[in-house]
């Protein structure tokens, strides 16, 4: 991506994944990533008429778990972010939102291997990303 993206961010981007069912989904954005940053793009679609246990602004409730080699971190990247009304797309049946963050902002690189990332929002759990991390040497 040519322009600088704000991270963590909650805007829709050219690399945002699509979502066909209610829930939350993650995608590893290889094109935006480099040796020093690993960008993860996400999207959620929440039904309007079901109790999916999300109170307040959905972005603030997104929980991300990253684990590798016996270490892990559980974080809420968007907890303190300012969410405006137009950051959420409203359809007849759903609220749709987008987000992105750099995995390295929350989980320190130690050595090469397969890092795993999963997120949750209310009663929904995302797919698990398997991110191959190359050696920085």
């Amino acid at each position, binding site marked *: 991506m040519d322009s600088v993206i704000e991270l963590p961010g909650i805007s829709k981007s050219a690399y945002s994944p699509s979502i066909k069912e209610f829930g939350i989904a993650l995608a590893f954005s290889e094109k935006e990533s480099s040796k020093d940053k690993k960008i993860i793009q996400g999207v959620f679609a929440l039904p309007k008429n079901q109790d999916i*246990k999300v*109170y307040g602004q959905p972005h603030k409730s997104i*929980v991300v*778990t990253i684990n590798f080699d*016996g270490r892990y971190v*559980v974080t809420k990247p968007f907890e303190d972010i300012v969410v405006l009304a137009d950051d959420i797309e409203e359809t007849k049946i759903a609220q749709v939102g987008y987000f992105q963050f750099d995995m390295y902002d929350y989980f320190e690189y130690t050595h090469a291997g397969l890092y795993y990332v999963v997120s949750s929002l209310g009663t929904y759990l995302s797919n698990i990303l398997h991110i191959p991390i190359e050696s920085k040497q």
Partner: protein
Amino acid sequence: MRPNTYTTVALLVLGISVAAGLYFYHAPKVERTLSMQPYSIPDNCDFNQIIKRGFGREGGGFLDENQCSPDIHDLKFLGIVINAPKVIHFSSTDTEDNQNAIPISGIISHDLGTYLDRKSSLARSVIIVVTDIKANETWSGKIPGPQNLVPRPKPLHGEEKIFTLEEMKGRIHHEWFNPNLFNITGMELRETEYLVYATVGPHKSNVVTIKAIKEGK
């Protein structure tokens, strides 16, 4: 076969079908949530039995199967399944004597040919995440590792065979876990609803909801 043999066979099949139908109609209701899922979760098991047994050091609990453990029917299923009481009652936020224990009964099914770093048992590598949905606060933890581990003895003859991931591929391994969620995550106990899930490596669990009710208000 002669025509009356056909009739006999048809009547026999019909009789067996009716008998089976009557049996299943009147049979006691299975207390597990049966579905198309590769696993089932006991609906009305007695979590108090797990609490009475205790959780040991740091609330890690026993790594065994019990009446609240989810069942995996599909032997090819890989992942984590957890069960928890739908409602818990508490009188104080005291952690002593397991007064406010929140038992989680889970199972992990893993292909030993898939890389997963494990310093001890597979169950002890599972990360459990709990969120207070009203306060939007999240805690997490793992089952504490064993104490005073004795190194594996060397074989009497020859070298110990170390299997490669390729050689282990297809060997599905199950482990159970029953920690006290309250102890291992350091969560705060409040009158609220909690969402709980577990994950490690390429595996994630179902999400369970626990309603916490304060008694004696």
